[in-house]
């Protein structure tokens, strides 16, 4: 079997090549109860930092998405302590100073770009901090749409910004106030409320379970 040596929190293990960091840890005997979630790169629970022998860089990635390499020094960061001040969305305006007022540490950004280098989602994290600084909430929301809140940027930031909480607020403000309402959805909801589809819906509601299941299975599905 093709094996590599990895060091998990300083202790060396021989593990099969081609495993992800997460699988390698389990292969080495770890039972993961924290720092492990969807295993598909979506939940952001398995933030991990590592170094490679002979390379000064500190790499950051998701354990479930990153294959092991020979000579990898690995430590997981199952939780990121991060500050989120309380707020009520309905009391906030999607304006220039809203993010800065709640997260004044944004102004400590020196544009070092360490956050961007740490992001496993390859987001332009620093650009989002800069957009937040100048109050461009829509831009923040768009730049951070794919953020999985793993916290790696937050752990690396010399300005001690709690990035994912800022992004979450920006996306909430964007969704609540800046994104145009979908007109066709509103129209359809009104149509349903006005019982435009009463005949069809009532027919389904009164169906026997078996008939309903058969109808469901026979439904037209978009390719």
């Amino acid at each position, binding site marked *: 079997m093709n094996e590599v040596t990895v060091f998990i929190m300083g202790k060396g293990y021989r593990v099969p090549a081609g495993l992800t960091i997460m699988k390698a840890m389990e292969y080495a005997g770890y039972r993961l109860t924290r720092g492990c979630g969807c295993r598909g790169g979506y939940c952001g629970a398995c933030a991990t930092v590592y170094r490679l022998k002979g390379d000064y860089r500190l790499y950051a990635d998701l354990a479930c998405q990153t294959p092991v390499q020979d000579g990898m020094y690995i430590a997981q960061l199952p939780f990121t302590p991060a500050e989120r001040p309380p707020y009520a969305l309905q009391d906030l305006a999607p304006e220039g100073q809203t993010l800065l007022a709640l997260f004044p540490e944004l102004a400590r950004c020196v544009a070092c770009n360490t956050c961007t280098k740490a992001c496993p989602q390859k987001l332009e994290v620093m*650009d989002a901090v*800069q957009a937040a*600084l100048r109050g461009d909430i829509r831009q923040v929301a768009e730049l951070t749409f794919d953020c999985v809140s793993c916290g790696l940027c937050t752990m690396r930031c010399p300005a001690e910004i709690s990035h994912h909480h800022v992004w979450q607020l920006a996306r909430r403000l964007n969704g609540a106030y800046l994104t145009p309402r979908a007109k066709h959805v509103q129209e359809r909801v009104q149509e349903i409320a006005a019982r435009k589809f009463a005949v069809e819906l009532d027919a389904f509601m009164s169906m026997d379970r078996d008939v309903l299941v058969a109808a469901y299975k026979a439904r037209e599905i978009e390719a």
Partner: protein
Amino acid sequence: MKRLAYFPGCAMKDQARPDEAGTLHALALLGYEIAEIPRWNCCGTVYSLAQDDLMRHVGPVRNLLRVQGMGEKRVLALCAMCYGTLARSARFVQEPERLARINAFLDTEEDFRGGIGVVHLLTLLRDEVGYEKLPSHVKQSLNGLKVATYYGCMLLRPREFAVDDPDRPEVMERVLEALGAVPVPFPERTECCGAYLTVGRKDIVEERVGRILRSARGGGADLVVTTCPLCQFNLTERRPPEAPPLPVLYLGQVLGWAFGADEPTIAALLVGQPTPGEPVSSGGAR
């Protein structure tokens, strides 16, 4: 059209939008194609007074790197503070060892090579457009409006990056004269407004702002002109109750109006009406 790289800075996209709008209107008529830097970040605002302040230059240098990426040799700033911060960093990296350290830290695909010039709107109008060219572009004269030219600190200090003689500046006066205004004697024009003390020591800022506005009014001004968003904020939001209720506009707003853009404050001043935001009762104090 002359292409000119432009660094807006955060304030120009938020509270100082009228400054940007007026300036861009005027610069287009003066034959400039303004190219905003893609993906710019904060200029770095307050620069560190520490000896080892290399980290503080990373932000501004990254902006200069993007100017280099555009294939440009210089960049325009409107905000007095952005100008000072960028100019300071452009000079900082003239020393090869510092440039190498910054490049090693930046770790970008393309190294910064240095040699990007930083110009302020005022120096552009003086050194490239020329005062004498301005009147021919004026669409509506300021018509003798009495203006107090407020420089504050950032345009003139430190001396190495001053847009003009730090003790006896004249560039803003000459520009406004060319637009038809009359600069008034204004002894406090280079005094600091109190800057960031506005956060923790409002009392100090109020005292200074009161003194600055009294000095402007003492010279007979109807309007105060500035290029700094923080000065603008302090001069309007931190004025003590007894201070003269003078309107405070950005240079870009005045320039834009002279070049035909709409600016209700100036329009009102020129017909002797109460200006927007000014209490009606104050009109008689002139």
